[in-house]
């Protein structure tokens, strides 16, 4: 519906818990995430649409997305 | 009048259940098998009447697992079986030992190995109660020898299982299970009944496997505010799995020692004419009945025979036996068993060469005859015996 104010998001990745499986990145509709070494990281926060799919499918309680 | 009322003429299997109910058992899960079936059937009849829970499971494994589930819900729980079913319960018995769940398991022994002779009595599962499950585990096994005693010992089984937080096995043979005697059922309160100790600490402090004053922590029933974890893996005091070798060592040792180190509290024995006995019969269960008869006969004839009858076979009453041997006047110990010498070996260990040990073994489904014991006491060699003219021709049920 028109030009709603773009919501902003904060992505928290717990490096202690992330096992680098890349599920989140694979299913992120906006390719916001990318693996760095063996830990997931945010490629470009601005592309995040807060859909939570990364959280929902992360098996390791390692990523959560909050409204900023 | 009122005394007459409390007297009941019961089968051993029935007395066992009367004892269980007296002790507050309110959960039974089982699967029928000869010659223990009446235990289950009487529970099916009785438990609903007192609001207790009875369930027939799909097999013996399911039965013991369900009973443990009932116990963790806070109930005094029981399951019963005979040889083949007891073999099937071994894995879960080990789990209950490891997780320290109070539970009473009845095994009414029949002739083995395998399906064997289902209605024939035997005492051949004695070693199995201790060694049937993999690993070293704690074992408390009571071996009552009369209908009345079955009543009392079943109560004691529940008490011990609560006190030591461990499964307790009530082990008897088909003769004891099916014989009938008049027994007295005491009024509530007459016999001590131990209730489950529950934690009183705040839930966040609850450590279900911590040791306090040498005893394992009380066991909180599921669903009452203490949300803890139970696992058959080696665990730390908090109940969670651990790979720490110190914990593994401590737990492994503690489990076995909580029983072995409390032999004097757990073991009860009947002693007869031991003061000056030169030949002592060490006998339990049905064989002790023959032994008692024989020893009395012999005494009447002037022979210095005595009887040491353990009511508890595990932990093995080595202290009591050692005392008898150490006293010095015993020349021979005779161990009559309806098996091929299971407890005979334990006696040998304790005696360690200090006097002669002679076994009388019988596996033809006929109880050892008092005469066999008498002749052993009098110095004759007794081969494993069958009395062929006593042939049973009944149809072997349950096979």
């Amino acid at each position: 519906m028109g030009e709603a104010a773009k919501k902003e998001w904060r992505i928290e990745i717990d490096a202690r818990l992330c096992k680098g499986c890349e599920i989140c990145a694979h299913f992120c509709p906006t390719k916001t995430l990318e693996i760095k070494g063996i830990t997931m990281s945010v490629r470009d926060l601005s592309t995040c649409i807060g859909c939570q799919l990364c959280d929902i499918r992360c098996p390791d309680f390692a990523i959560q997305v909050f409204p900023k | 009048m009122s005394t007459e009322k409390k007297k009941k003429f019961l089968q051993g299997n029935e007395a066992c259940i009367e004892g269980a109910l007296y002790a507050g058992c309110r959960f039974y899960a089982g699967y029928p098998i000869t010659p223990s079936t009446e235990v289950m059937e009487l529970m099916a009849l009785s438990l609903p009447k007192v609001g207790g829970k009875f369930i027939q499971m799909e097999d013996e494994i399911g039965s013991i697992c369900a009973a443990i589930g009932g116990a963790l819900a806070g109930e005094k729980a029981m399951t019963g079986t005979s040889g083949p079913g007891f073999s099937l319960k071994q894995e879960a018995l080990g789990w209950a030992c490891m997780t320290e769940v109070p539970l009473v398991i009845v095994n009414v022994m029949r002739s083995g190995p395998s399906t064997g002779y289902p209605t024939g009595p035997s005492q051949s599962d004695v070693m199995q109660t201790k060694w049937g499950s993999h690993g070293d585990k704690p074992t408390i096994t009571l071996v009552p020898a009369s209908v009345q005693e079955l009543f009392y010992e079943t109560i004691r089984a529940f008490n011990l299982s609560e006190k030591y937080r461990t499964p307790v096995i009530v082990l008897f043979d088909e003769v004891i299970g099916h014989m009938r005697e008049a027994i007295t059922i005491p009024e509530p309160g007459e016999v001590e009944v131990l209730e489950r100790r529950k934690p009183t600490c705040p839930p966040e402090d609850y450590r279900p496997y911590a040791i306090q004053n040498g005893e394992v922590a009380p066991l909180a029933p599921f669903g009452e505010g203490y949300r803890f974890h139970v696992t058959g893996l080696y665990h730390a005091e908090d109940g969670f799995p651990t790979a720490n070798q110190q914990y593994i060592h401590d737990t492994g040792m503690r489990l076995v020692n909580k029983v072995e180190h409390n032999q004097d509290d757990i073991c009860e024995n009947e002693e007869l004419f031991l003061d000056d006995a030169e030949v002592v019969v060490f006998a339990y269960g049905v064989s002790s009945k023959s032994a008692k008869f024989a020893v009395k006969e012999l005494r009447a004839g002037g022979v210095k025979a005595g009887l040491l009858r353990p009511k508890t076979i595990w932990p093995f009453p080595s202290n009591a036996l050692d005392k008898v041997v150490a006293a010095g006047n015993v020349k021979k110990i005779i161990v009559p068993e309806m098996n091929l010498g299971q407890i005979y070996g334990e006696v040998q260990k304790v005696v360690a060469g200090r006097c002669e040990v002679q076994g009388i073994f019988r596996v033809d489904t006929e109880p050892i005859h008092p005469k066999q014991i008498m002749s052993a006491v009098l110095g004759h060699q007794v081969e494993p015996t069958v009395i062929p003219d006593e042939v049973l021709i009944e149809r072997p049920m349950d096979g």
Partner: protein
Amino acid sequence: MTTQVTARTVPYKEKKPFDYSPFLRKGKLPHIWCAGCGHGIVLKSLLRAVDATGIAKDDLAMVSGIGCSSRTPGYVDFNTMHTLHGRATAFATGLKLAKPRLKVIVATGDGDAMAIGGNHFIHACRRNMDMLILVYNNYIYGMTSGQASPTTPEEKISTTSRYGSIEPAFDICELAKTAGATFVARGTAYHAQELEKTLYEGLMHRGTAVIDILDSCPTYYGRFNKYKNVAEMMDKIEKDGTVSVAQAAKLSPEKLEGKQLRGILHRSERLEYCDGYKNLVDRVTG
């Protein structure tokens, strides 16, 4: 006392992001599961569903057998039991019968529930005792490093089907239904939000509920069967390999060929076992 646990009566609202911590045991994470193992996704869906029901943690018990999936109870702050391989439903049966107030969840795997535990499973369904049985179905024995399970599809590779499995697989849902379960559903880790709702329905059901959850073991099943990574497994098996009951209604038989149905597949009313037992006691004592 067969009073049921207090549960919310209003339909729940999704919480985004969801705070898992009240349901987890402190200090127990990271869990033991491998990178990409689907079990964690299932667990998270379950916790969200539990929250939605409003059932108090004290009223919840989780019972498992042995397997990677069966490690679930160790992480959740309920009354938990990690029992023996295959025996979870039997333990759960005793627990529930003794204390019907508890809502009992059985966490089990395709090996635990359908191989060694198959008999307890069908008998639990038959009795219709109130319990939710979650089968984390990854078509393999994960914990023992990848042997075939009763749900391994034919021709698939495992360490005990080195030349491709020659055994047909069970359909867990069909078996549960035939055995008597009164709520039968299927979900996948891929469809984690849909799964959450299915789990919610399963939790609210009174009677034996079985949910077959397609889920991935990338370490063994994935590696042996040449999936590039876990995402590919999820795409191919869980996404492309299934269709929801609603979608299915619109598809031609050819389109449905080889696809498993997702959603609630069966629901019926039948006297719950503990209720039946209570009636019996009332009859005998009253």
